[in-house]
């Protein structure tokens, strides 16, 4: 197969000075130069950091490659080099085909300009020709759903509207190779769904996509293959679902417990703050759980003042990004207005319910603000754990040891009559 992108020995070095804007002011720079001249002192105490170190990989045409790794692993640096925003210190990259990059939705949008003007501005910035934009203009506007306001300055748009318009422009970019950063991190669920859908269309039409994300579900859903970066080096490469599982399991990403020691920094606000979230099984914290026995999601939170009735809620998402279930505590104790204090609630997920694989848990403390749920303190991907089947014959899979499909893996009661 033809390689769309080849990366060889790519390294990027930053000096700390550079990152902090060098000497800060001209005065300091002049003082440093003066010192150097007077005392022959060399100012080389600048510390160096290799954001990327000898990274090599190939991306065959038509592949959707995910790049994962924790914050500071070098993902963004790699993407910035591939998009030519910054230059490498060493190494070489060859990209074959027209490149489009999307590091942000709505790059260059100007609030004073109208929606129409911003479509042209943003499209040009993303590399579209004016003629191309003119041809696609009606589609872009229709896709965005802001037809009525297209000649209104964008500063009068709601944030949702401008994001939709910006995304509509980006969605009509038709490069052979698309480089995408955490674009999905913004916007509501509906918007994210459309982003993912659009990217799926792209990958199905044989385009090459590099996708950098923290959202493991999105990576497994969209990408065929993935690269795992840690401290600027590739530490894993392979099929995306396997690599995501490894990433989560080996503690590169979300762990099986989260504790916020400083309440002021914890998720929430002046009403509720989360204190910790843990995955427990058999009385212990567990990163890997036995599929047959119950798993508890223990949520500790503080109520800081009196308020409306609240209750804890969890959302379970599997390694392919599917929501397995949502659950909240509906017991009577949460029907009264909340009182200040520290609470610890545990949600018990029965044994023989979840399928094998990585589960990511989103935690919220909500109140019912009819007709919707209002979140007072919430964390996406709060904790994760890996459900394992020890294959001893007493789980839903029985003595079969192959892959068992399904969102859930219940052990059902079967009745059989023989006549």
């Amino acid at each position: 197969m033809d390689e769309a992108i080849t990366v060889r020995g790519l390294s990027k070095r930053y000096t700390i000075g550079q990152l902090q804007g060098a000497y800060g002011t001209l005065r300091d720079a002049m003082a440093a130069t003066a010192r150097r001249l007077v005392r022959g002192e060399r100012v080389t105490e600048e510390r160096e950091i290799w954001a990327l170190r000898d990274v090599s990989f190939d991306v065959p045409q038509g592949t959707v490659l995910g790049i994962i790794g924790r914050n500071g692993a070098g993902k963004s640096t790699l993407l910035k080099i591939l998009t030519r925003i910054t230059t490498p210190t060493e190494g070489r990259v060859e990209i074959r085909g027209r490149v489009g990059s999307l590091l942000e939705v709505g790059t260059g949008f100007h609030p004073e300009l109208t929606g129409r003007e911003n479509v042209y501005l943003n499209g040009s910035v993303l590399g579209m020709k004016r003629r191309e934009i003119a041809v696609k203009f009606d589609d872009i506007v229709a896709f965005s759903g802001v037809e009525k306001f297209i000649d209104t300055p964008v500063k009068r748009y709601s944030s949702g509207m401008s994001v939709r318009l910006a995304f509509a422009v980006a969605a009509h970019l038709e490069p052979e190779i698309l480089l995408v950063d955490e674009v999905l991190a913004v916007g509501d669920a509906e918007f994210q769904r459309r982003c993912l859908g659009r990217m799926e269309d792209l990958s199905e039409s044989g385009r090459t996509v590099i996708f950098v994300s923290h959202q493991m579900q999105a990576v497994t859903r969209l990408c065929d293959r993935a690269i795992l970066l840690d401290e600027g080096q590739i530490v894993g490469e392979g099929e995306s679902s396997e690599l995501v599982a490894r990433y989560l399991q080996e503690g590169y990403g979300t762990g099986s417990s989260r504790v916020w020691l400083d309440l002021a920094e914890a998720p929430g606000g002046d009403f509720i703050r989360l204190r910790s979230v843990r995955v427990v099984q058999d009385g212990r914290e567990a990163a890997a759980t036995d599929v047959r026995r119950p798993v508890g999601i223990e949520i500790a939170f503080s109520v800081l003042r009196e308020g409306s009735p609240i209750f804890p809620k969890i959302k379970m998402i599997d390694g392919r990004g599917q929501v397995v279930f949502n659950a909240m505590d509906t017991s009577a104790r949460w029907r009264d207005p909340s009182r200040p204090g520290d609470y610890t609630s545990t949600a018990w997920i029965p044994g023989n319910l979840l399928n094998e694989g990585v589960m990511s848990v989103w935690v919220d403390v909500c109140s019912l603000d009819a007709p919707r749920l209002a979140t007072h303190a919430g964390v996406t991907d709060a904790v994760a754990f890996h459900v394992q089947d020890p294959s001893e014959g007493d789980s839903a899979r029985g003595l079969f040891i192959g892959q068992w499909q399904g969102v859930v893996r219940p052990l059902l009661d079967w009745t059989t009559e023989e006549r």
Partner: protein
Amino acid sequence: MTRDTETRDVRTSLVEARPATTGDGGEPAVWEVPRVTVIRPAPRLPHLDLRELWHFRELLGVLVWRDVAVRYKQTAIGVGWAILVPFVTMVVFTLVFGKFANFPSKGVPYPIFTYSALLPWTYFASAVALASSSLVSNKALVTKVYFPRVLLPLAGVSVPAFDFLFASIVLVGMMVWFDVWPSAALLLSPLFLAMAALTALGTGLFLSAVNVRYRDVPYAVPFLIQIWLYVSGVVYAISALPERWQWVLALNPMTAAINGFQWGVLGSAPPALGKTLVSVASMVFLLLVGLWYFRRSEPRFADAI
């Protein structure tokens, strides 16, 4: 890993396509001509990729259009500013330098002398200010999308050209009023205006790159412009100075730009060839230094901004 230190270079190149080859099934597999982008470490010796600039010409147009559109939308009297600033300055200069100090004005009425100098000067001053802040004020673009960064200062020196056109209308009115007629050298005035633009570009390239690292630039620019005004022949005719000083001031390309422009519109004495050449050389030097420093700093813009 191969590292070729001799040909360190970043560029987009059109590489000839592989010939259509024959697939396994015996059917010809046709490939499109692929454009290959090669990314390598920044070159030691910076150069300007003119072909790439040409490729991005439309974006330059869009950036200029954006700034012009925003400017006239955001401000209450919009295009009025383009006329008001040089006009009021002309009135003040006429009162202070023309009437009170009685500065030399090339034998034409002082108001039209100073206004015809203020036109290229006001353009130059805004061009330097806009170009030198262009990188920092477009931070969102610099950190999120690739294009030759030179486009930003280039757009910065293009935008005030629109103001210049509007302010020229007043000049035409004044010429009729004072009965001053242009000479055939008016046809050369675009060249002298281009000199002002290139001088602003050289200065803007240098200052915009400095501004990425040191945010002292916005404080220094108004000061620099103010000083520069007094050595450019805006308030007095340089030709009235001692010969020796005229040669020194010729190092400032704006003296030739303004002199040349006035030669055309006022029909005043033509600028001396020798001094003009000194100015042109000085302008080329400024432009090269600005461009060299800009291109050398460019790889770090996104990291340091």
